[in-house]
């Protein structure tokens, strides 16, 4: 595989295209998950890191891994901005994943508020990765607001249902000039692989690992699947027959010039 194939986010380059979540499994497993996943970026909830404990999640993340603090708990742009600033104060760096939810049942992102928060935070020098519902207009607005990537959901958080929004994610991949990172709902390595084949720049997963019987092994499976999907995308897939057979004689063979 081409060694120059890097993921670039906010001017920083990464060779791994697997972004790891951290919120749903034991802190003691984080290091193994990172290693098996080959991950260079890990998300964490600022609200979880905001502890004087005992066990702070920040102490479990190796120094060479880039932190991607998220604003979970925010219900509007203003709250997200405040949480992002707190993340910076806590020493989490300049990356921020904007997550704004006004629904405690489905945890679907509010695109309008997300656009507002992205605009404010990117002006403050944050590298903003907004979690979004895959809507083309919103994605364009996020580009204009200064996002470093867009993170559309594949299906509802925690559902492990895979690429329910496939057609719409494909539109974002085709039309948006930023990395499209598929986030939320990816339940199996095969789904991650499929998203990468489609041209996604990276995959983010959490629940799929947390609910696996063997977390490090599943992290490794995702890592391999994401790499395979990326290579397939770069290799430019050939023709795939989806239905019936193709005519052996071309229909347009009668044309004469």
């Amino acid at each position: 595989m081409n060694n120059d194939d890097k993921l670039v986010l906010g001017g920083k380059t990464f060779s791994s295209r697997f972004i790891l979540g951290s919120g749903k499994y034991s802190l003691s497993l984080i290091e193994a998950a990172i290693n098996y996943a080959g991950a260079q970026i890990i998300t964490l909830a600022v609200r979880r890191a905001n502890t004087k404990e005992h066990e702070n999640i920040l102490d479990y993340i190796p120094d060479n891994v880039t932190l991607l603090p998220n604003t979970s708990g925010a219900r509007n742009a203003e709250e997200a901005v405040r949480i992002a600033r707190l993340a910076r104060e806590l020493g989490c760096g300049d990356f921020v994943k904007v997550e704004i939810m006004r629904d405690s049942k489905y945890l679907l992102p509010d695109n309008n508020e997300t656009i507002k928060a992205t605009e404010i935070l990117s002006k403050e020098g944050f590298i903003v990765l907004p979690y979004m519902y895959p809507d083309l207009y919103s994605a364009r607005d996020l580009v204009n607001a200064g996002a470093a990537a867009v993170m559309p959901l594949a299906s509802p958080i925690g559902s492990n249902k895979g690429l329910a929004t496939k057609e719409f994610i494909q539109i974002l991949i085709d039309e948006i000039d930023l990395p499209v990172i598929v986030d939320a709902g990816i339940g199996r390595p095969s789904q991650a692989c499929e998203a990468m084949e489609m041209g996604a720049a990276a995959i983010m997963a959490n629940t799929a690992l947390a609910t696996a019987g063997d977390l490090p092994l599943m992290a490794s499976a995702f890592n391999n699947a994401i790499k395979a999907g990326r290579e397939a995308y770069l290799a430019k897939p050939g023709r795939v027959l989806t239905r019936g057979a193709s005519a052996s004689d071309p229909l347009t063979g009668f044309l004469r010039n």
Partner: protein
Amino acid sequence: MENSFFIDSQKLSPAALEKKHRLENDPSSRTDHMKYMEGMEIINSDICEKVMSQVKEYDYSKYTARDVIAALEHETCSIEDFKALLSPAAEPYLERMAQKAKAETSKHFGNTVYLFTPLYIANYCENYCVYCGFNCYNDIRRMKLNAEQIDKEMKVIADSGMEEILLLTGESRAKSSIEYIGEACKLARKYFRMVGLEIYPVNTDEYRYLHECGADYVTVFQETYDTDKYETLHLLGHKRVWPYRFDSQERALMGGMRGAGFSALLGLSDFRKDALASALHVYYLQRKYPHAEMSLSCPRLRPIINNDKINPLDVHETQLCQVLCAYRIFMPFVGITVSSRESESFRNGIVKIAATKISAGVSTGIGDHESKYSGKESDGAEGDEQFEIADDRSFERMYKDMSAEGLQPVLNDYLYV
């Protein structure tokens, strides 16, 4: 079998005893429990009607094994499915319910378990709720902590490592005023990352004031949603007013609180109907206030000082587990708290299935944390407990036990924004 709740203290005056007996024996001597008392805010809400119309018609005996199996196979659990899961027909399917509940819990919460502790700051009460240790006729040591004492208790708890606190009082506006509780919230914010309240129901503007003082979560137990039964258990005081209590969580959310907790006290009335009502109360309020964080708990009746015979009747651990699994399957996103009323073994088991939050280092008495946490003799007075707890594990031990069960204890998942 019914619980026998009525206990006479020898310290009561003849006049007080006479009034007590009259309240107990003569329903006409009691006030109308559906009528608001002066000063109680009436909000415009259709939630009660939505919940109670379903509860009224719920006939759990009509559900069959076929309904239960269908409910378990459906991808999303409808209200009808939930009713089947709460029915007696579901009892033989408890293991399957637990498996499904566990899968839902882990999708939404992973292996995390939240730890918190309650702090009772006063046990004065103006109500006569016949099953409660704090009731105004019960002969117990009464106490209200002053600011200095609250500060001291909080420091002891915070030093143990705890980051979330639930402040509780008995229900006495006269002894524990809104301002007094507000000051306690302000103190709590010094020591804790998250402050919840479990106090007497108040009006929207008072919830707003308490929110500004630092409380972000309000829990109110409805005790029972069966209004007729409620009337026979809550004989005196403002708590007698059932509808004002019902709308507490909505007033709290209107006052700006981020979250609300709900519960019936199982064992008081028909537990299946009460469980249905509690869950629908959450369900309909969540639809109206989708941003709010909701939680359910499932306490059972416990013995109290001067009446060690009180028990949860037909709600055994099996039934409690069934209710909790049904809650989880119906509402995968809600927090579920299991209190120290339950045993160590039950709590260790249920956190792996459905519960997401448990208390540790619990005392339901007043001003006794230092003596309980350090073994040091108390240098001051202490107030008696509300009920007997069943799981007295310290914070440190709970943390270790949860980790040993393969769970990740979380002390704080909260930001004031």
